[in-house]
């Protein structure tokens, strides 16, 4: 699939599982802790109800993604029930559909993985985040370094052939050597896919409090840049392809799901706070878990709000999302999707960015240069109204 782009009608399904055992210090996602098995059950039932009532896009479903929160906290049987409901409505659902589940190493056993594999999960995204106990502890992760090793071994033993690992750089007081160690150990686990995120300090998190009070010290911009550059060089030397700003994969293992976002394909988001997009329209559900569950059990809509993008707004988004990918934006696909000429619509912006050496045209595509990917936001801002 990395060779060809998606069909314009290919779509994805995002399923939000908000439950966590504990909240990480940096997290400002829509998550809840201290929920019991019964809450999980009711929530998963609500998801099935929402799915069964949803209007589906007409194209081919190519990806299902269980994101969180911590989807691995939920009984795999419940995940299986949901996948069965999906299969019941999507007649051409087959083994080619990428079905990903995010797993926390502190919540899984070999048995969990076996069941997940059996009920239809074929890709795991395991949140490692760091390879030092001190950092894991400081981030309030619920697992240790050995859990990460064990999770990957168990996943392989359970038959998973597509395993992705996540890590974060730029942790408070993180040394360059520690980051180097994290990368080396992650690579030793032979992941098929790696996502590396720079730690963002989000308002209202314990991390932000610590930084404000001065008890946590973030590495400076140069140190962060060093870490990012080192990661890019190391990963590519080990044969992973840098196919998107924050993602690397072995050949053929690029994630389908994230890329659907970058190509402005349709996706249906189910669950509390989930976002959906279809043909210029974007909508999102209530963030509150209880409110979401109640709405579904009483047959109401969970929709909180929506927005409609004009054709020009869609084209702008298509550009700054599409340029995240190494392969860039295809002029032909742009023409097919919008029936407009990319070079005419954005003549001035593309001219300026080309002159600044931030984008380049190559074989029918427009993509970021190496300097352009370092300054991706600078480029993206140029496509804002």
């Amino acid at each position, binding site marked *: 699939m990395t060779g060809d782009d998606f069909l314009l009608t290919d779509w994805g399904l995002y399923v939000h599982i908000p439950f966590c055992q504990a909240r990480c210090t940096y997290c400002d996602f829509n998550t809840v802790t201290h929920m019991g098995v019964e809450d999980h059950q009711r929530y998963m039932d609500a998801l099935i109800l929402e799915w069964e009532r949803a209007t589906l896009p007409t194209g081919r479903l190519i990806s299902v993604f269980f994101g969180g929160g911590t989807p691995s906290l939920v009984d795999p049987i419940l995940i299986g029930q949901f996948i069965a409901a999906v299969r019941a409505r999507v007649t051409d659902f087959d083994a080619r559909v990428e079905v990903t589940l995010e797993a926390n190493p502190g919540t899984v056993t070999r048995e969990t993985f076996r069941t997940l594999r059996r009920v239809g999960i074929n890709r795991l995204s395991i949140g490692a985040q760091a390879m030092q106990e001190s950092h894991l502890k400081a981030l309030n992760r619920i697992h240790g370094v050995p859990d990460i090793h064990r999770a990957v071994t168990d996943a392989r033993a359970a038959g998973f052939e597509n395993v992705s690992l996540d890590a974060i750089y730029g942790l408070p007081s993180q040394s360059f050597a520690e980051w180097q160690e994290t990368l080396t150990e992650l690579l030793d686990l032979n992941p098929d896919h790696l996502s590396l995120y720079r730690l963002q300090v989000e308002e209202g998190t314990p991390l932000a409090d610590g930084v404000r009070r001065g008890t946590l010290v973030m590495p400076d911009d140069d140190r962060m840049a060093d870490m990012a550059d080192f990661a890019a060089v190391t990963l590519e030397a080990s044969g992973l392809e840098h196919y998107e700003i924050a993602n690397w994969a072995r050949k053929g293992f690029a994630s389908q799901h994230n890329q659907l976002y970058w190509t402005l394909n349709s996706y249906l988001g189910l669950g509390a706070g*989930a976002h959906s997009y279809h043909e210029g329209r974007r909508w999102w559900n209530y963030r509150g878990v209880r409110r979401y569950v109640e709405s579904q059990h009483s047959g109401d809509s969970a929709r909180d709000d929506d927005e409609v993008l004009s054709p020009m707004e869609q084209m702008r988004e298509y550009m*700054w999302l599409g340029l995240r990918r190494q392969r860039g934006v295809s002029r032909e696909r742009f023409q097919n999707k919008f029936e407009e000429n990319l070079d005419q619509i954005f003549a001035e912006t593309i001219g300026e960015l080309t002159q600044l050496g931030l984008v380049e045209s190559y074989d029918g595509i427009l993509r970021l240069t190496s300097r352009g990917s370092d300054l991706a936001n600078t480029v993206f801002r140029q496509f804002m109204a």
Partner: protein
Amino acid sequence: MEPERIRNFSIIAHIDHGKSTLADRLIESTGALTHREMTEQVLDSMDLERERGITIKAQAVRLDYEYDGQRMEMNLIDTPGHVDFTYEVSRALQACEGALLVVDAAQGVQAQTLANLYMALEHDLAIIPVINKIDLPNADPDRVIEELVEIGLDGTEAILVSAKQGIGIEAVLRAVVQRVPSPKGDAKAPLRALIFDSRFDSYKGVLVYIRVIDGEVKVGDAVRFMATQKEFVVTEMGVFRPHLTAIDHLSSGEVGYFAAAIKTVQDTRVGDTVTSAQRPAPEALPGYRRAQSMVFSGLYPVDSQDYGRLREALEKLQLNDASLTFEPETSVALGFGFRAGFLGLLHLEVIQERLEREYALSLITTAPNVVYQVTGVDGTIHRVDNPALMPTPGEIVTIEEPMVDASIITPTDFIGAVMELCQERRGIFRDLSYMDPKRAMIQYRLPLGEIMYDFFDQLKSRTRGYASFDYQLAGLEAADLVRMDILLNGQIVDALSVIVHRDRAYYRGKALAEKLRELIPRQMFEVPIQAAIGSRVVARETVRAMRKDVLSKCYGGDITRKRKLLEKQKEGKKRMKSVGNVEIPQEAFMAILRVDDPS
């Protein structure tokens, strides 16, 4: 009212010694306002005044007071409480026969107390010392009385007051009647009335605040302003109780206002004399001078579309503020704007805040500067109020800068620290005297330009907040001054040019370049910052190129969040000014003010 039953007085004090609270109590206790009507500190009517706890405009309130069965007319003239408005204070004092000198019972005599006292004595006012805040736990009235004796007052005459708790208010009112002389003037002579303030009212035009010295003025009279030679017909007159209350005439000794369909306060200069158009007085009252701008700054709209709105806002403010001046100017860096002149830094701050608050303008204000008098090689003399327009050294014979005589009162422990600060600011030592064994008064002559840069903050921090400071303008003096330019990426940014003393150019240049390096965000390319005198670079810093500008996280398909962040960043960029290719944030233009001095 016959003059014998009139008392005109003012209250003078160091900042925060309780002037406005005392005024409130006087108004309240004479029944001018009921307690319910009192908003705290009635006389400070602008929001800004109330927030900052200072008085910017003078006001006058008529109080009716029963003394031994006789109704007295007492006019309280409130004066601005800041050194920027020294001239306005002096005019307000000229309208009075007496002054309450308020001193904080814990803090004692401070620099402004003295400056105000001397000014009141110059006008031959009867001084009534009032020791306020005697309710404070650390109040020490006995020590304050000693200090009053030290500065030449009769300590036994001091009245002990707590304006906050209403203690001693009656004693103050009685003392005003007993000790402040009634006004002397010739009721039969041609009209002479002193303008001590004015303000613009959108219905009535300018309200002119006057103290009648000789003669009288009635509604319907034709009056002439002697300095501007403008004539108007009085349409309305009245007094403040403190609400406007119409009356039909004001006679010798009285205080009030009149309206005469005057469209701008520019016609009603503070200190000018109002006389009768039919029967003009041969001579104006003494002491008038034109308000002169001491501090200049460039005011530029962040969004160039707002230029017209900025002009309108300045015009409106000028309606009520004769001391605000402005002229259009253009800057390569900032585009179209205005060079505005102010009485001082506080005045500048107040105007800037009102423009932003009341007119919702987003402004870039360049670092304030004084006005220099430059004598050219061709013998011409001209005033330079914008550093960027300072001629090249080859064209200049001398540059003169405005000086001030500063008095600083400090605990003796900090004498060294204060002298060191004054020395750093090119001060010339004048005098050192002891007010008591623990406090000293230090006098220095200082360039006005040097006290504009955080002098007061430095003084406070080096004396742990104990020193007080006041100054008076002291003419011009020649100095070895040069223009220092700032270059970004090799291009001069005109709005960042400053005038500095040659000996200190290196330090200032270095400090300014360092500050700019902190303030200017990293850009796509490296940005050299240079401070230069002519073609000689005295300091250099570099803003290194930005290495990464990346957002990596994806919030579960929530594209809106990413988009909002990028939009916000783009909005932020729009608020920066571009010179060449360099984006400069607003704060950078004020950087010079925050440069710490080498010590």
